[in-house]
């Protein structure tokens, strides 16, 4: 620690250069953090997936419906704990831009299958008593400034409006939060019976079913049993783990993972060059000084450590500030409509800090080794 002041002194030497280098490191890690959050948002469904949940959909595609009575037939299959039926409604509030996930469900089975969205007993009672009742995620409530008790009109790009009415009207009976970090709280769930009565087409049909199995080790066997039950019927099914279902959906959005990785590496390569070059420049300028240090008895190893410490300090400071900024931005979520769970997981924060450290080491390595190998006589003679 007694050499700390030496390191700090060196950093202060060319303040402008240090500041610029730190700034570029901040930008790099801010970008890194945001891209991680973006990836997280795109893969949210996959990460949130529960190992003991299965999704049953029509074999032709997710768009094709299933008969509502499949719910009871599946509930009777051994190993199935509870079954929730969902349908994509795709609610629009006032303007097509205000588009969010909205799904008709049966309150009791829904709350039983999706335990990460607990609601109070009163809310549940209220929901069961209100035909047009809906529960709304916290972040969606905030976005539109809705309050419990409000009645909101929605239209749907798929279902249009209910018979003889301009819009579907829902009464908000409660708000829900997610017990999992990064869980989606930008959706709205309303009652299927109200929906089925109001819609003009596809009466008695639902979109897909989410199932909780009793024992997750039997999930594969249960999935097979479900598909066998409906084989050769007009509505054949495909049953898969919730994770697989979500990831096939995420992949449909595009190969974002590859693009993210590509951008991150391009940025890192760039910053690495900039920082590494700055470091070696500052060491080169101090050749004489390093010679003096060595003449004073500083060992080669110590010189190496000092130079590395300097570059790691720059990289770490930039990294931490950049990641903190990214965390703050993802908290505010600028892409709420498209990516409800844009968040920066702790795992990526740790990766980021480690990457910053690695950047410092790599960038400092070459000049540090040069400094270490520097002969006192050569160094002192240079000028």
């Amino acid at each position, binding site marked *: 620690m007694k050499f700390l002041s030496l390191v700090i002194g060196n950093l202060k030497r060319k303040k402008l250069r240090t500041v610029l280098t730190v700034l570029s490191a901040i930008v790099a890690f801010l970008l890194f953090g945001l891209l991680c959050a973006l990836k997280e948002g795109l893969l949210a469904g996959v990460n949130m997936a529960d190992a003991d949940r299965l999704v049953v959909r029509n074999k032709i*595609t997710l768009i094709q419906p299933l008969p509502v009575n499949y719910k009871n037939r599946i509930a009777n299959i051994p190993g199935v704990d509870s079954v929730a039926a969902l349908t994509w409604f795709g609610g629009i509030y006032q303007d097509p831009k205000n588009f969010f996930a909205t799904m008709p469900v049966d309150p009791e089975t829904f709350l039983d299958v999706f335990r990460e969205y607990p609601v109070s007993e009163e809310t549940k009672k209220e929901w069961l008593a209100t035909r047009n009742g809906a529960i709304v995620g916290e972040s969606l409530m905030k976005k539109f400034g809705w309050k419990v008790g409000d009645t909101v009109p929605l239209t749907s790009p798929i279902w249009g409006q209910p018979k003889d009415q301009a819009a579907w009207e829902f009464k908000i009976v409660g708000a829900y939060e997610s017990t999992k970090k990064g869980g989606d709280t930008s959706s709205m769930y309303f009652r299927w019976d109200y929906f089925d009565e109001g819609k003009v087409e596809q009466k008695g049909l639902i979109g897909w079913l989410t199932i909780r199995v009793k024992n997750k080790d039997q999930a594969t066997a249960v999935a097979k049993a479900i598909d066998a039950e409906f084989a050769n019927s007009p509505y054949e099914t495909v049953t898969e783990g919730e994770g697989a279902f979500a990831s096939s959906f995420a992949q449909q959005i595009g190969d974002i993972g590859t693009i993210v990785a590509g*951008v991150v590496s391009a940025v890192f390569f760039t910053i690495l060059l900039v920082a590494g070059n700055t470091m070696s420049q500052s060491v080169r300028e101090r050749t004489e000084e390093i010679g003096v240090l060595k003449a004073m008895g500083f060992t080669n190893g110590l010189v190496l450590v000092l130079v590395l410490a300097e570059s790691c300090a720059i990289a770490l400071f930039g990294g931490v500030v950049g990641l903190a900024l990214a965390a703050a931005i993802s908290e505010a979520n600028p892409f709420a409509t498209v990516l409800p769970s844009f968040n920066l997981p702790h795992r990526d924060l740790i990766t980021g800090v480690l990457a910053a450290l690695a950047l410092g080491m790599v960038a400092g390595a070459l000049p540090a080794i040069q400094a270490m190998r520097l002969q006192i006589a050569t160094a002192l003679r240079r000028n």
Partner: protein
Amino acid sequence: MNWLTQILSISFFNLRALPERKGSALSAAFGIAGVVLVLTAVLAIAEGFKKAVTATGAPDVAVVLRSGSDSEMNSGLSREETRVISDAPGIARGSKGPLTSAELFVIIDLPKRSTGTSANVPLRGVGANAYEVRGNVVLREGRFFEPGKNEVIAGAGAARSFAGLEVGSSIKIGSNTWQVVGIFSAEGGIAESEIWTDASILQPAYKRGDTFQSVYAKLNSPGSFNEFKDALSLNPQLKPKVARLSEFYADQTTMVSDFISQIGVMIAVLMACGALFGALNTMYGAVSSRTREISTLRALGFGSGPVVVSVLVESVVLSLIGGIVGAAIAWIAFDGYQASTLNWATFSQVTFAFAVTPALLVQAIIWSVVLGLLGGVFPAVRAARLPIASALRET
């Protein structure tokens, strides 16, 4: 010596000395190249997507849906209604009567080639006039499907992105099997993401009775649109929604294209800041390492103006090199790169190619010059302000 010669001689001198400062010069150029590469690639996605959407809609093609529907998914028209629509004024006529095509739109599951996971691929049932209505459908391989048979033709984008769409192979949808008999292109438009078959075959397969979802109509001219729309709106037998095809698709895809451009701008702005810091660092470094040189020149009678300009020239040359390299890599690596994404309005895949357009390349180069100027201006001013006497003494 006049001003211009001074500028030329210092700039030339600086540029010739560049090889001596390879490290820092290269890192600045690389920094800019990185920005330009990323920026161009991201904008190429948006550009390619836009191209797919706009190539879809000629101005003289209109689409009619049931009123209240935003996409073909939730529209429904009876055969009677489609006939009424076909009789409306303003529609161009071909050898087989009015150029309209009553269509059905469903979605099937096919595995994506790149990942093997299933994707929602649109399957469209079209009328006999569909090719003439679109006007840009060209057969690439095989033949068109025969009406009344379980045959399909696949769009070129769909055939590239999804497995099982080679001519001669067959796809199984529910209990029906369909033969792939041809591959078509449509100037990169959204139709290329689709698989087409005869609407009358698709109706029973999807239990749609005798209904359709949309009518595509070729108009006499783009100007006939209002006549056509008004006639349909005033017809008491119909409750239609009439739109120009181009606007219809642009509306459907705003969510996706807004998202791409938002992300793109965010990345580009951040990267530009990063590169700017890098360029500033390099140029400050270049100036400070030449402090003595610059003040010697000043002492010899060179003005501060030429010194400023020469530093700027160096910075711009470096970033221009970076920009050209970045743009070239983006063009080689990404132009025509095939991608597909989800159109949220219909829940189906849209395939498109990244488009590194000449406009984008020019934009990229302009960007790099701007970055070079910004990165050079502060160090240049600093160089000019160096007090000659003390600077000469500096080591």
